[in-house]
């Protein structure tokens, strides 16, 4: 152990109460920073996972058609203007688009979907608005977590029942529908069709669970009188984080509008990020208090140890040794505070994840979603280091600039 560290440790342990106060503030600052970041990230990740599980990473929805405002000069050069593009709803030749999508190495699966707003009626309630999704179930579970979202009933029942339907939990509750019960889907200008509840799903996203009804593609085509084409193609990617880049390339290659999940859910993602930043700033106040407590502790030690500083200086300890001795004290508190704070943060995060929440807002969850990340620990510790060290520099420099002659003369008088 270096002489300066040894002295720092002894100075610090001599002021146990003040040191414990600084330490507990540091522990609280680090721990609360970790737990709040884990919970806000938890909500964000829960939402993103649910969205990816329900709507896939990319959706190919509308055909792009260039207008006269797009200038083309030969084969290799074109100037395109966003405003000059026209969108034609739906995908007219889905097989060709799917074949094109399969050329993208990052594409994991594709699912053709027919979608339309409809009215649903049960024995309990008439004409409730919903959205029917015509799918091929085996294709669709490759691009979604629909199989994992089944809360009651089974996909096998759906597979074996041509008029089977998968209905969201909130919609089922609203219509008071149970497994095996039938309901009507009504489309304008077309006779209503009767479907039977094969399974009830729960994605965790309220906006989805209260509106979507999945039926077999064939049934959907009959219901919606759409013999060819699809409304959209849902695409899953090996690396969903690259969805924005891949979607841009898909648009360029296929001539269809491709919406990555980041663009689709931009508003909510920004809300979650703003929440994480705001809670981070709030919790940083604890670290600020820790730094003030450290400042106070060191300032007290400097006042009480002026004689010791004079002795050290008379023995050949340099100004930088004195600075180091005081910065070591802050370092010791920080090191212990970072370890204990991280342990407290981990424990509190675990505890929070067990708190029953029963949230039924934008997302549906029974417990607090948490997403611990090593980066939260790094950010918490770095914040504490920066603030506590800044607060410690002032008393440390003051101690280093004390003149030993003045101290000894003062003590002797």
């Amino acid at each position: 152990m270096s002489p300066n560290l040894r002295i720092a440790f002894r100075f610090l342990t001599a002021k146990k109460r003040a040191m414990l106060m600084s330490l507990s503030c540091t522990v609280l600052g680090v721990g609360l920073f970790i737990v709040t970041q884990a919970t806000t990230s938890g909500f964000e990740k829960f939402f993103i996972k649910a969205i990816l599980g329900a709507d896939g990473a990319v959706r190919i929805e509308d055909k792009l058609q260039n207008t006269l405002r797009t200038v083309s000069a030969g084969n290799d050069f074109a100037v395109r203007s966003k405003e000059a593009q026209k969108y034609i709803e739906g995908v007219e030749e889905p097989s060709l688009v799917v074949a094109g999508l399969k050329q993208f190495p990052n594409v994991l699966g594709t699912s053709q979907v027919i979608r339309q707003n409809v009215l649903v009626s049960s024995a309990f309630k008439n004409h409730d608005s919903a959205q029917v999704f015509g799918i091929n179930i085996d294709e669709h579970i490759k691009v979604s977590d629909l199989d994992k979202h089944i809360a009651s009933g089974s996909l096998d029942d759906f597979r074996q029942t041509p008029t089977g339907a998968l209905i969201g939990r909130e919609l089922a509750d609203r219509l008071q529908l149970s497994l095996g019960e039938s309901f009507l889907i009504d489309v304008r200008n077309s006779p209503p069709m009767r479907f039977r509840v094969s399974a009830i799903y729960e994605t965790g996203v309220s906006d989805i669970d209260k509106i979507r009804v999945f039926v077999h593609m064939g049934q959907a085509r009959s219901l919606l009188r759409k013999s060819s084409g699809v409304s959209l193609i849902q695409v899953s990617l090996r690396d969903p984080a690259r969805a924005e880049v891949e979607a841009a390339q898909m648009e360029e290659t296929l001539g269809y509008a491709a919406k990555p999940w980041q663009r689709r859910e931009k508003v909510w993602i920004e809300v979650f990020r703003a929440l994480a930043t705001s809670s981070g700033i709030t919790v940083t106040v604890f670290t600020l208090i820790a730094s003030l407590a450290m400042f106070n502790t060191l300032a007290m030690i400097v006042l009480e140890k002026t004689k010791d500083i004079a002795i050290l200086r008379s023995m050949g300890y340099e100004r930088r040794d004195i600075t180091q001795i005081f910065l070591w004290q802050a370092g010791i508190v920080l090191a212990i505070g970072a370890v204990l704070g991280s342990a407290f943060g981990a424990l509190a995060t675990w505890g929070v994840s067990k708190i029953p929440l029963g949230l039924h807002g934008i997302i549906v969850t029974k417990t607090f979603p948490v997403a611990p990340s090593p980066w939260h620990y790094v950010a918490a510790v770095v914040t504490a280091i920066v603030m506590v060290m800044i607060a410690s520099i002032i008393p440390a420099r003051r101690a280093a600039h004390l003149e030993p002659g003045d101290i000894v003369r003062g003590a002797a008088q």
Partner: protein
Amino acid sequence: MRCAGLQRYLGHDEGRVHVLKGVSFEAERGQVYAIVGPSGCGKSTLLYLLGLLDQPDAGTIEINGQRMSNSDDAARTAARGAHIGFVFQFHFLMLEFTALENVLMPMRKLGRLTPAQMETRAHALLESVGLGAKTHRLGTQLSGGEQQRVAIARALANEPTILLADEPTGNLDVKNSAMVFDLLTRLAKDHGQAVVLVTHNPEIAARCDVTRPMRDGVFIGT
């Protein structure tokens, strides 16, 4: 150690006092010097200047032939660690540390010896001041006389060329005063070190090799 024409002012503005008015002094190895005089005559100020704890407003200080009076803080600090040992009136032990740790502290900073050699030397020094059995006592667990003896052992730790003592017996009873003075002079003589001490005690001053009385910032009756 040699100093010439030392001048020192203390305080500011109207409170500014001319404490040292051109003091010259020389100390040789193996000699014990006493600086005596009334309170406020500048004895301690001179001692702090000689110990490089303070800087003169004019004049020169040389230690082992090196001029130190105008050197920077780092050079003066290094010289203090290597050549000068201090004993203060109020012991100035670091009370959270044991007697052994107090003696080890200057050695650890200088780093001239290995840790094992430092331990051996610290034990030997504490043994020589009669505290061999109390090496692991904290400063708070030692009496005033014992604390001053630890301070002497600590001052000798780096084998300095000069030992400066500011009223080393000023806070002790007669018995302890005699013991501390004997110890200080014996150890210094044994190791060929110059000892400069400031004292009010005429008996102590009378036992030194050289006595330099001071008044109003100058030596008198040389």
